[in-house]
């Protein structure tokens, strides 16, 4: 066990960095899907937008001002995008998930194409801000400081989201809406307001995650699909509409993705989807979901 950990510590730490990043992306997707039954495939496009904001504002030569500015700009764009997506999908609320998927997939394609037109299709890099751009020795190997910082920021955000959703009245309203939104309306609360707020907050997190992930993933066409698929796997594994599920699912998938790549490079996608299939067979509602994915 000790030897295994020595040999794979870098992979495990990477897994945590990816896991926390995935949590930030997936929690909004999970809440919107769990709450409103809206399958928002444009969630990856929000991440991609954040990544390109990072590339455009921060670029390869990062400053703290640039990095924080990019985070703020991405947050603003994410908020606006979330409000827009909520309005776009509202008329499809009682329609099938296929209709919602087609609409939001269309939005994704438009956004991705506009980004290619603006920035070309070569991958762009995003630097880590000064002080976080070096590396530290971890068991004799050099490990990028930024990834450790990302784990810290991700953990803080995870705690903040968790406290907000699990311990406040606003969060109770969100959980009630996930459980039975008609009964939330029956006590006089407008579902649409809850929905647009959660949509906006979740989209903001996804877009800022694009900036935060910049120093690891950069900005490139196709990144939206990669992230969306990982986030969907997290949501399915963790269970719809559960913050706890999104956190555990994201950390698990982060490890599976990272260790899968380092231990079984050829089989990595099979490991990822194999674990998804395993959860679906053993616990179709996800690890923490109250409701079946099959129903949704």
């Amino acid at each position, binding site marked *: 066990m000790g030897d295994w950990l020595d040999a794979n510590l870098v992979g495990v730490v990477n897994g945590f960095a990816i896991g926390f990043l995935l949590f930030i992306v997936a929690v909004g997707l999970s809440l919107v899907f769990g709450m409103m039954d809206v399958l928002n495939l444009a969630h990856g496009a929000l991440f991609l937008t954040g990544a390109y904001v990072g590339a455009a504002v921060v670029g390869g030569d990062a400053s703290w001002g640039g990095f924080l500015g990019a985070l703020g700009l991405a947050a603003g764009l994410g908020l606006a995008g979330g409000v827009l997506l909520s309005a776009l999908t509202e008329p499809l609320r009682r329609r099938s998930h296929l209709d919602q998927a087609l609409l939001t997939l269309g939005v994704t394609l438009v956004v991705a194409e506009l980004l290619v037109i603006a920035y070309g299709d070569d991958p762009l890099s995003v630097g880590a801000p000064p002080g976080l751009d070096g590396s530290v020795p971890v068991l004799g190997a050099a490990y990028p400081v930024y990834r450790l910082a990302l784990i810290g920021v991700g953990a803080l955000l995870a705690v903040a989201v968790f406290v907000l959703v699990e311990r406040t009245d606003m969060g109770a309203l969100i959980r009630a809406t996930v*459980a039975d939104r008609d009964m939330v309306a*029956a006590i*006089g609360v407008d579902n649409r307001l809850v929905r647009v707020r959660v949509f906006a907050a979740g989209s903001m997190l996804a877009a800022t995650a694009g900036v935060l992930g910049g120093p690891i993933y950069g900005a490139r066409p196709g990144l939206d699909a990669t992230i969306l698929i990982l986030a969907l796997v997290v949501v399915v594994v963790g269970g719809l509409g559960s913050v706890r599920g999104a956190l555990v699912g994201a950390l698990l998938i982060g490890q599976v993705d990272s260790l899968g790549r380092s231990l079984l490079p050829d089989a990595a996608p099979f490991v990822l989807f194999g674990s998804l299939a395993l959860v679906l067979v053993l616990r179709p509602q996800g690890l923490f979901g109250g409701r079946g994915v099959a129903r949704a």
Partner: protein
Amino acid sequence: MTALLEVRALCAGYAGSQVLDGVDLDLERGSGLGLLGRNGAGKSTLVLTLMGLVPATSGTVRLDGAPLPRRPHLVARAGVAVVPQGRRLWPPLTVAEHLRLAHRGTGTWTPATVLDLLPQLAARRHQPAAHLSGGEQQMLAIARALLTNPRLVLLDEPSDGLAPAVVDTIAEVVLRLRAEGVPVLLVEQDLRLAFTVCDEIAVMERGTIVHRAATAAFRADPATAHRLLGVA
């Protein structure tokens, strides 16, 4: 004085199939109407349609003379509260969270006064609704409705599957509401409960009200009850 609730020729249903077929109904302030009828008659659909949770296809509903809004949150704000069939609590939320979310308006009902009326909930404040007994869950569903400080309460089979002591508490709540002038529409299978707390009985069949009588008159006419409900 006009009735607090006036329902005229109300029709509603689900994707293609019409369930309510012209319901007419009046409810006076402080009155209690027991709504009986066989399974599938449309009683729950009527409750959900009044609440705005099933869209009406035609007809009118007035509360205190004003048309009732269509969206459910506006119906609730206009003063209608529902204790739905099957209770429909929010299982992961604690009792206290249910009470805090539901509280609105400046009437008599606050989390404190509701807990005075339903003391069995007080001890379970920090339990998730999923961990409560059936009786406690029904108390919580009733508490949630009261906390909106409603002018009209719709109760759909509240005694379903509950012990006699819990049914007594439900009866007490209905009588207390009526005493305060809040009318109650009580859908029930338990005739004894309906007879105890309602001054009138209506029977629904295939989406319309086919019979309506004062409770005493209804009880004095077992032949009609038997014909409409298939019970003695």
